């Protein structure tokens, strides 16, 4: 090859590389602009929550001319009780739901994935169908049931179903996961003389950690954001979870300002955002494999 042709191929490939870089750069510019557009409302909320109330809706632009944390301080005490009460309530409900789901769904999934008994397939089918059942069909009789036992305005209606394996999505997720664990491991345990309970506790449960983590993450996010069920059952303000408390703050909006509302909305999202930051990878994998939201 002569120097001339070598040079020309080099220029050509360099030109192609340059074209590709330019194309990628354009793509990145477009994508970044789109990310900015998508997240702009959230950024606006953060900026507005830091502005004094009279500037929230009058001052255009993101950068506050005056930064204040008054909205957070006043918002925290805007309702008759401080928000710490609602956070504590949400925490109790969320942690309870996580424990309930981990306990009941793992037991069910182990039986459905590993134990031999009649009707196993039928049970599995029932579980899958119940995923599609809209909760609105069940919620009225459930409400009547709990109110007959005088349990409205307690956390039992929110927590009891979680301990009874009713979030079928997670059973499905765990069954799928247990199926990937080699059967030889349980057989070895059986040969060593452990029964189903020991096998579950010492062999399967430790190996299903990724599925348990995914269940924990999604239970946390769903329960923390849940509005419909707490709205129905929790009637006295001292029992309110954070979303119900926020909603009642909207109703009394005329007294408080938008800045306060934004500040408290932001604070209510913090636990979810922190969870997202910490558990991003598992979360994305969880959605990709099961289609959870």
């Amino acid at each position, binding site marked *: 090859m002569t120097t001339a042709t070598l040079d020309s191929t080099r220029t050509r490939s360099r030109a192609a590389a340059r074209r590709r870089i330019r194309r990628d750069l354009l*793509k*990145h510019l477009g*994508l970044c602009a789109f*990310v900015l557009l*998508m997240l702009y*409302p*959230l950024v*606006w909320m953060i900026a507005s929550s830091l502005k004094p109330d009279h500037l929230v*809706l*009058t001052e255009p632009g993101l950068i506050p001319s005056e930064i204040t944390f008054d909205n957070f301080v006043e918002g925290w005490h805007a309702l008759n009780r401080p928000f710490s009460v609602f956070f504590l309530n949400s925490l109790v409900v969320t942690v309870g739901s996580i424990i309930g789901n981990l*306990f*009941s769904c793992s*037991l*069910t999934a182990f*039986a459905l994935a590993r*134990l*031999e008994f*009649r009707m196993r397939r039928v049970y599995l089918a*029932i579980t899958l169908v119940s995923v599609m*059942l*809209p*909760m*609105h*069909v*069940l919620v*009225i*009789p*459930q*409400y*009547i*049931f709990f*109110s007959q036992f005088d349990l409205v305005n307690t956390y039992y209606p929110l927590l009891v*179903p979680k301990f*009874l*394996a*009713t979030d079928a999505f997670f*059973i499905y997720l765990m069954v799928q996961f247990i199926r990937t664990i080699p059967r030889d491991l*349980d057989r070895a345990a*059986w040969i060593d003389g452990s*029964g*189903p*309970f020991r096998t579950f506790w010492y062999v399967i449960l430790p190996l299903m950690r990724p599925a348990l983590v995914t269940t924990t993450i999604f239970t946390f996010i769903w329960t923390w954001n849940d*509005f*419909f069920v707490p*709205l*129905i059952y929790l009637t006295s303000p001292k029992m309110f979870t954070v*979303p*119900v408390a926020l909603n009642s703050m*909207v109703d009394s909006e005329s007294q408080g300002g938008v800045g306060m*509302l*934004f500040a408290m*909305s932001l604070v209510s*999202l913090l636990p*979810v955002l922190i969870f*997202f930051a910490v558990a*991003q990878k598992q979360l*994305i994998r969880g959605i*990709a494999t099961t*289609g959870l*939201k």
Partner: protein
Amino acid sequence: MPITRARRGPRGQGGAAHVFLIPWWLGLVLVTAVPLLASLYLAFTDYNILSTPEFNGLENFRRMFEDGYFWAAVRVTLVYVLVSIPLQLGFALLLALILDRGLRGLAFYRSAFYLPSLLGTSVAVAILWRQVFGDDGLIDRALSVFGLELGSWLQNPSLSLSTLIVLNVWTFGSPMVIFLAGLRQIPEELYEAARVDGAGVVRQFTGVTIPLLTPIIFFNLILQTIGAFQSFTQAHVVSGGTGGPANSTLFYTLYIYQQGFTNFDMGYASALAWVLMAAIGVVTAVHFVLSKYWVFYGDD
């Protein structure tokens, strides 16, 4: 039978299985089956929780036909589903395709686009939406630059539903993540084979990517449609629980909530809930039937 059982494991698992399944059984009976039957019965009664349910035959269903709110709720929910789902899935697919092509920073973009899905059903974001589309909100201010003075979208019956549609489209991140996972499943050999056969970029897209992605598209379609039919929080917060202005945001579930838990007309609310379940069942069944014509499973 005894042979297979011996091969699979020790005997007596049936007993153990039922111990493991105690929570599930209790849940199935107490939380699902009994309430399901009870609500079916209540759908044919007049019941206000204080007195005993009074059987009234098909009265609740007849009442729906004459109930303007019912028809408003049906219309609002259908428009919401029919407009927001195609847009949401369209964005999800488009972004997944753009991100799939070995672009750097995939993890960053994926997280950024997923974030709204994570927050979209929260009361906090619904509150944010009230302000974004409200008087002097972000949108109002942006449009006034172009000389458009629409005022608050939420006070305007012809615009209020579109704010909720935008909110649902905004959460395209979760179907996008599922699309990305699906795109990664497509074997590179197929693209190579297509290239060897002389297929260009467009032909590769229509001949390989789209057919192999149809099961994922179908999955997302079913999942998001069922979810959209049951949306509640955003409409409740944005309209202050009323479904207004002029019933323009009266989601079907919001109407069930109003009848059941504001008016305590629980017989009628149960009938409404069964109609919703039937509708979701029919839509899902139609999707499955139609899927035979466009969803591509395996290489047959």
